[in-house]
């Protein structure tokens, strides 16, 4: 048998096939591993994002809370959630003109007002909130009743509750529905008092985060006004 010039021998073909198989197997292993790493990273990001969201939102909401603002239970916190405030530049009885700054405009349907004066802090219902020309565009807030002492500063708040249910942190305003703030990734969650303020314990759900090992996450939300939480 005479070989054609330039043709490969069987041995060469076997060697090439074997090498090609090795390369493909390596590539397949790399791709598989890459997938696993990517999935792990995705799970980690989902979890960290949920933990971070809880820490940031709860931390901001309870940081300036006072004894009268908070009711703590194992699976919920009911609180005055501050949405804005400002100095009173002019006032007449129930009508206050406020240089308002906040995360949103006051909404009489769901907001109330804490009025700060020399004599102390008093809560009032809010009847209306409209723009006015006073004090260079102050907000005109009409309270349900006339404060005994003209307030110098007001804080606008809504009453809400942060609830741990269905594996997620949820916010519920008044008696309204529960809006999830995080992905439902947790098997167990619990609020507890801490020396600095509030502790939130979150145990990841192994069904939701199968690829991610790890224990319970703890978030500490300091309370500057240090209410004696029960």
């Amino acid at each position: 048998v005479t070989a054609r010039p330039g043709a490969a021998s069987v041995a060469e073909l076997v060697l090439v096939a074997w090498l090609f198989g090795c390369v493909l197997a390596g590539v397949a292993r790399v791709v598989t591993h890459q997938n696993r790493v990517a999935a792990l990273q995705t799970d980690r990001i989902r979890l960290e994002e949920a933990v971070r969201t809880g820490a940031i939102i709860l931390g901001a909401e309870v940081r300036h809370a006072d004894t009268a603002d908070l009711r703590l239970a194992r699976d919920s916190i009911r609180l005055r959630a501050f949405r804005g405030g400002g100095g009173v530049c002019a006032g007449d009885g129930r009508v206050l003109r406020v240089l308002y700054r906040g995360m949103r405009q006051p909404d009489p349907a769901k907001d109330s007002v804490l009025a700060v004066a020399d004599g102390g802090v008093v809560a009032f219902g809010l009847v209306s909130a409209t723009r006015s020309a006073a004090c260079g565009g102050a907000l005109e807030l009409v309270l349900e009743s006339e404060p005994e002492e003209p307030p110098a500063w007001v804080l606008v708040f809504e009453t809400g509750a942060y609830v741990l249910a269905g594996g997620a942190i949820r916010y519920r305003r008044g008696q309204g529905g529960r809006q999830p703030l995080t992905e439902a990734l947790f098997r167990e969650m619990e609020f507890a008092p801490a020396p600095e303020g509030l502790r939130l314990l979150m145990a990841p759900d192994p069904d939701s985060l199968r690829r991610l090992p790890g224990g319970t996450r703890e978030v500490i939300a300091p309370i500057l006004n240090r209410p004696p939480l029960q």
Partner: protein
Amino acid sequence: MKCRSGFALVLSLVLTVAMAVLGAGMLVVAARETEIAAAVVQGRRGQALAETAVRVLVADWSTRVYGPLAVGETTAVPGEPAAGVRAWVTRLGTTLFLVEAAAGAGVGQPAAAALVRALDAAAMAAAVPGAVVADSAVWLHAGMVSGLGSCGDAPDAAAVVAPLVDVAPGAELEGAPAVVAALPPDFPAPEALTEPLLSRLATVRLPPGELADWPDPGTGACATGAGVAAGDSTGSACWPPPFIHVPGDLQVRSGEGQGLLLVAGDLQLLGFRFEGLVLATGRLALDSGTVIVGAARAATVEVRDARVTFDACAVRRAFGAGGLDGAFRPGHRWWIPRF
């Protein structure tokens, strides 16, 4: 040269590009997570800085600096209470102030705000409307009480203010008017200014009991001639004057003192000279040539052989004594959110 066709190079290039894309994707996600974490850390650091600046400002508070602010007026705090932080103080009411600090400039920067209360010396002095003031009764057996002691914008006062005033024939009274038979006003003090806090703020703490001679309160370091109002001519007085607190009954038999003397109990002064304000929660007895320049207030006051001369500036100065010059945390809410 022969042409040899193959696909190994192309395949390896394709695989390399695919791997690079996958790796780059993961790197981008990881980098974004790092950026988010860094932003969170930076925000927390800014928040801590702003809160530290507020705490520093409150700790360094002096009513002599912020007391002159008008209600509604804002003043920037000179310098930086913490590195890279601006701070300012707004007077919200007679005793209420808002302390704010922001890390960096512009809206959205980490910021902190706290409500603090401070004694208003003028308002506090208004709760001492006479040379001798009592919540229930004053017995003036002998001696002299004068309410003529105007100073700056503070006018002359009554000699005696109490619901019940009994003046013996030998006693002398002068004032504008001499006697006001009425309940004196309460002190407009913050609710947080409790007995334990007062004890802590005092610069001199004396044990209850009997003192044969008034001890040197150690005021050599204080500045002299620092009046608190126009017309305050008491050049020998020091600033800040001592705040002397006694947590029980006290009897002093001789000596000289100045400042604010607060006795949580009965007080008997014999042959003692005091410049400032004497306060006792129980009975105050002035005897044996005791002289008070300023004012005295107690539940009941008995003047036997003493001279009390009202001095509006000495009274006002006394409310700047020791730690009373500082800021107090309100009873409940202190920190407030800032948007």
